[in-house]
């Protein structure tokens, strides 16, 4: 290995349409540094490293590697220069052995592979690294921590000495994370590698990183040595000083009775691990409860469970005091509305028409169906016309396929379907994700209207501004549990930021 390089990114700007994901960001990473990139979702961390790795073409920006200017247009060039990336999720092929995975990723394979000599090369290589993994075990049999080690070792095996880690510990237990990070720390101290790590966790920053760069909404907030920063300062850099009071007009009124009550709710994720753990929460009529948190802390599983798309593991969900199991009868009786993120994928049938999609909640109720069996399409169309008008959905007509509509209009159509029944309980997840300003403002106003007329609203969002602006009460979710609960009128943004980072 040729020793740890330094890298400097100068003046990076990257626009997606009108939105600047990165705005003139410059970062200098010293040789042998363990450098943290800190920021909320959407702060531009991933965009920045993807530009550096050549996955995205930056609109502006220069890269100096060991003080020499280099051009990286393609990941291959980045790899040749010694830049390697380790992802949050594993990229090794699970049913191939470590040896096979490593040799495969080299990419310059001869027609016949001499496995004996490859094995010897790899074993020799492992004798020089601070940790090793079993060479002949299928990757799928390794524990999560070992898999992540294997991912890192592969980068080293491929002679990459500048590693970019994208939330490398999010799938690891704290002990595994400590072990992996502390060995990496030693390697940087020996000047073997330079490491840039994207993270949300203050604990890891404090324990392992020597320098922190904080991004916020695509802008550089600052780069400082970790030793000069405490958690409060970091949280403030990360979330900023913000207006905590709503811009949207809201009525002052006393909140009503509890509509949704979660008691000790636990939900497993797709691989069977608990994503929501023993969570208890109450939402009353006429209030918006905002669930803040970095994505991947169980919010998605929570919303899917409430929406009927996922089974709970244990605990109780009650709506208006009655047990709730997400059947259609219960949804209709309690008038439950859901606004998930990416509505075309999660709340629509893309191949069906706008009118049909708007009727998904009501197609088996009068007037679309007088008896629950017969289906009448003309009342369906009439209702759709009214909703299209009332919610200003831009569509060629009620019979147009919904997949032809723009994202904002799909969300408006879903909003029309879900909110027109004046539901008692509204479950919302990242409703404004990927929408333009006009659509965002309108959707937020509709949510506040729903609250004003007495609906209980659960708002899960990765956008802290949205939560601060809309919520009456804020809870923070971290690692499947509620980390903080505060009325938004007296919310301390720093405390929210710390809770989001697990402090």
């Amino acid at each position, binding site marked *: 290995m040729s020793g740890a390089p330094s890298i400097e990114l100068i003046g990076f700007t990257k626009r997606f349409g009108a939105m600047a994901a990165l705005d003139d960001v410059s970062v200098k990473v010293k040789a042998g540094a363990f450098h943290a990139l800190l920021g909320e979702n959407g702060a531009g961390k991933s965009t920045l490293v993807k530009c550096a790795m050549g996955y995205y073409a930056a609109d502006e920006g220069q890269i100096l590697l060991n003080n020499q200017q280099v051009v990286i247009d393609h990941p291959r060039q980045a790899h040749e220069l010694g830049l390697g990336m380790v992802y949050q999720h594993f990229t090794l092929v699970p049913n191939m052995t470590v040896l096979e995975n490593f040799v495969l990723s080299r990419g310059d394979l001869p027609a016949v592979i001499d496995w004996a000599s490859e094995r010897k090369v790899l074993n020799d290589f492992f004798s020089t690294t601070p940790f090793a993994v079993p060479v002949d075990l299928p990757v799928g049999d390794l524990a999560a921590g070992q898999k992540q080690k294997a991912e890192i070792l592969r980068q080293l095996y491929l002679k990459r000495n500048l590693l970019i880690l994208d939330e490398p510990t999010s799938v690891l237990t704290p002990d595994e994370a400590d072990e992996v990070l502390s060995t990496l720390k030693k390697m940087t101290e020996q000047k073997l590698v330079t490491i840039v790590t994207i993270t949300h966790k203050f604990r890891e920053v404090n324990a392992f990183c020597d320098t922190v760069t904080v991004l916020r909404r695509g802008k550089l907030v600052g780069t400082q040595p970790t030793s000069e920063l405490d958690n409060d300062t970091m949280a403030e850099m990360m979330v900023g000083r913000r207006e905590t009071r709503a811009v949207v007009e809201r009525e002052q009124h006393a909140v009503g009775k509890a509509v949704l009550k979660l008691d000790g709710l636990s939900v497993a994720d797709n691989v069977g691990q608990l994503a929501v753990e023993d969570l208890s929460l109450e939402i009353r009529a006429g209030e918006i409860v905002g669930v803040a948190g970095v994505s991947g802390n169980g919010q998605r599983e929570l919303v899917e469970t409430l929406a*009927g798309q996922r089974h709970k593991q244990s605990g109780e969900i009650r709506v208006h005091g009655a047990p709730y199991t997400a059947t259609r*009868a219960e949804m*209709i009786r309690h008038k439950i509305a*859901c606004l998930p993120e990416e509505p075309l994928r999660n709340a629509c049938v893309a191949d069906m028409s706008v009118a049909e999609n708007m009727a*998904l909640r009501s197609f088996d109720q009068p007037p679309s169906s007088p008896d629950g*069996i017969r*289906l009448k399409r003309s009342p369906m169309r009439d209702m759709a016309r009214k909703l299209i008008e009332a919610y200003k959905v831009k569509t060629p007509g009620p019979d147009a396929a919904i997949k032809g509509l723009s994202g904002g209009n799909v969300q408006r159509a879903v909003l029309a379907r879900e909110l027109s029944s004046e539901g008692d309980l509204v479950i919302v997840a990242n409703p404004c994700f990927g929408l333009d300003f006009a659509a965002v403002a309108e959707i937020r106003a509709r949510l506040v209207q729903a609250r004003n007329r007495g609906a209980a609203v659960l708002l899960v969002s990765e956008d802290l501004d949205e939560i601060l602006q809309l919520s009456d009460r804020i809870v923070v979710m971290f690692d499947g549990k509620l980390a903080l609960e505060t009325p938004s009128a007296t919310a301390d943004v720093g405390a929210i930021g710390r809770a989001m980072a697990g402090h």
Partner: protein
Amino acid sequence: MNTTLERIAVPVLALLASAVLFGLLLAFYAHVDPLEAFGLMYEGAFGSWFSWQNTLTRAAPLILTALCTALPARLGLVIIGNEGVLVVGGVTAAAAGIAVAGAPPLVVQLVMAIAGMAAGGLWIAFAGALRQYRGVNETISSLLLTYIAIALMNHFVEGPLRDPSSLNKPSTWPIGDANMIGTIPGTDVHWGLVFGLVACLLCYLFQRFTTWGFAMEVIGGNPKTARMMGLNVGRYVLLACGAGGAAAGLAGMVEVAAIQGRANASLAVGYGYSGILVSFLARHHPLAIVPVSILLGGIGASGGLLQRRLDLPDAAVVVLQGIIFVAILASETLYGRLLKPKEVA
């Protein structure tokens, strides 16, 4: 509107492509004039009232077995166990018919139809339940169930239900001439064709004009959305699979009560497999199944003429069917690209 046009254009293109391929095969491998062969095929399928009747008789079971794939396909399931259902339906219907043989013919026929449909419905509902509650791939399980069905049939026609006088071809006892369902007046085509037409019409009306049909379209279109709407996905899976299985089971009953008069190995002659092809060609649309079944019935009917006049093997039309199936599967990738100008990435 583009999509409707495309839904017709793509299968038609696939059919044309298969015809070209088959023509090349005839010209360069079998050394016959493809145009003459196609002309004879037309003659054998649709050239006379006689060939029309032959075609329609062959189309009848195809219409019913195609529904066994088409109905579950609405929910996004791929069921290909049609042959087995036909066999199960046929054997059950025969057994039921023999059991009540003394009753008035209409009663016997009704009992046979109900028995065949119930057995077929349960057969595919089982595959649907395995999929819904145990995560077993319904395509594989329904296919494997076909082998079980044929083995069961062999067991019954050679064992408990065997008519000792059926020496060369083990069969069940006959259901009796009086109990046969007969032909449509003025034709040689049996009533099974009417059953098929009615079944397709009912399925279409069900899909288009009932909330259950609508719910099935939602489930097939986006299961995640369906769950968010609180739809009971499992119930609809069982319903669609059961109804599809019942249709193919009825095809088995018709084969017994209109053609064979008894259940034997002649039940498993490929109507079930051809039904899969029909359903895919028809894009699983119940009304489109009818013309497609007639087309494929015609191809089957023309085999004899090709054999007699061009000395082609009987299997020639089966080769054409195979080519069509592969072409149809390959043409799936054309949807959304055919009529839309290429988008710039």
